[in-house]
């Protein structure tokens, strides 16, 4: 058994393409939390042909399709984020990611649809009004963390923490010390202000870039320009939910300081770490 302070149990499983670590005061809460993450993985994986996302990508352009509450909720969040970021955050960038070889498969032609072309209909039905393909890689991990926290609360836990490959959230009385990886060197860590009942997610791409046909690409796409967002700094966002934190890291990565007003709308704060260790954060103040 492992343990850190306060008789906390920590467990780790390979899920969502990364390592998901869950800490709580009892095993029952941890098992419920892992089950919630596994459910989100089954519904929202781009890779798994049986997932709801894969089914939507194949058939939702032909007519309305029923989806689970969870997938519907994530699509509704994606819609709101698209709207409030003027299209910078767009889940319909799967064709670009496939063309760059970051996602498997081949885009049929170049579907030009956007998140705004996804119709969220009554009774949890979804239809794509133009040909488009979605990838929830930018928010599903954060959402899985939120569902895991919800499951822990429902099972009676009074505190806990979930860290899905760097997207993390905690609840309970205790302040959690959090660290962020240096954007260039993963062995160096910077300490961020402690977290309490909040989520933190980080995005960076200076060590996950690839060169493809003479072009440098990465997993982050600016929804407006459809171009890769190549940045030397990393962005961490603290927000009330991990889905919002996860999504907004991509928006700040793409737009920098111009994203500040969006952060305010979601009750979020951003931290930027530059390669020379300059750490700055964005906040909205009443003057």
């Amino acid at each position: 058994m492992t343990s850190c302070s306060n008789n906390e149990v920590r467990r780790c499983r390979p899920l969502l393409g990364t390592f998901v670590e869950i800490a709580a005061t009892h095993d029952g809460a941890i098992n419920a939390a892992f089950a919630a993450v596994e459910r989100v993985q089954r519904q929202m994986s781009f890779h798994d042909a049986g997932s709801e996302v894969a089914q939507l990508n194949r058939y939702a352009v032909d007519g309305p399709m029923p989806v689970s509450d969870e997938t519907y909720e994530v699509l509704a969040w994606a819609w709101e984020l698209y709207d409030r970021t003027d299209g910078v955050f767009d889940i319909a960038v799967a064709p670009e990611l496939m063309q760059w070889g970051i996602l498997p498969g081949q885009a049929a032609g170049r579907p030009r649809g956007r998140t705004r072309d996804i119709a969220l209909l009554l009774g949890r039905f979804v239809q794509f009004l133009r040909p488009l393909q979605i990838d929830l890689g930018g928010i599903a991990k954060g959402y899985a963390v939120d569902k895991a926290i919800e499951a822990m609360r429902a099972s009676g836990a009074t505190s806990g923490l979930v860290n899905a490959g760097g997207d993390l959230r905690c609840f309970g009385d205790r302040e959690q010390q959090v660290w962020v990886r240096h954007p260039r060197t993963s062995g160096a860590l910077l300490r961020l202000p402690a977290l309490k009942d909040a989520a933190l997610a980080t995005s960076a791409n200076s060590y996950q870039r690839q060169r493809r046909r003479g072009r440098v690409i990465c997993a982050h796409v600016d929804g407006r320009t459809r171009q890769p967002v190549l940045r030397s700094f990393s962005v961490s966002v603290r927000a009330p939910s991990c889905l919002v934190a996860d999504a907004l890291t991509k928006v700040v990565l793409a737009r920098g300081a111009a994203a500040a007003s969006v952060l305010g709308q979601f009750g979020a704060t951003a931290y930027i770490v530059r390669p020379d260790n300059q750490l700055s954060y964005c906040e909205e103040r009443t003057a």
Partner: protein
Amino acid sequence: MRNVIQWVALPALVVAAPCYATVYHTVESAQQACFPEATQFASAGVKLSKEQMRAIEKDSGVRVRLDSQRVWRATKNAEFLGWFIVDEVIGKHEFITWALALSADGGVQSVEVMEYRETYGYQIRNADWRAQFLGKKHGAKLKLDDDVKNISGATFSCRHITDGVKRLLSFHDIMLKQ
């Protein structure tokens, strides 16, 4: 009153962590987590011949590094529940001890990480390299927390474990299937 948006510089506390590790499970606690109803775990360590290693590689498409495997038979009284296998995978920076539980019919029942270690040997032992970080702290006293947890930011993919599961399923088919 109006809201202004500011970018504020923060003092940065930087730690160059040459290695950090988390132990999630001992063999016993992982066994218990995978087969809570089991009454006995009988060790059945398996030694592989060169031919068997090649056969597993061919079947799984994954390289077999070691010629032995730590395996236990889980039983409840006399009833066979499944296999509990402890394995190790090594990535670029990380070293992971993990356990695979297979049901009696050979299906994957659970995967648990037992120990996760990250090491940045060369880079971080290099004094010049360290200096570039440690010189930058702004007034903050540097104290390496002996327990660095809750790290945000790019973590590693779990592909090595996915490959490990494939390899152990072939290992089961070739060596354990009854």
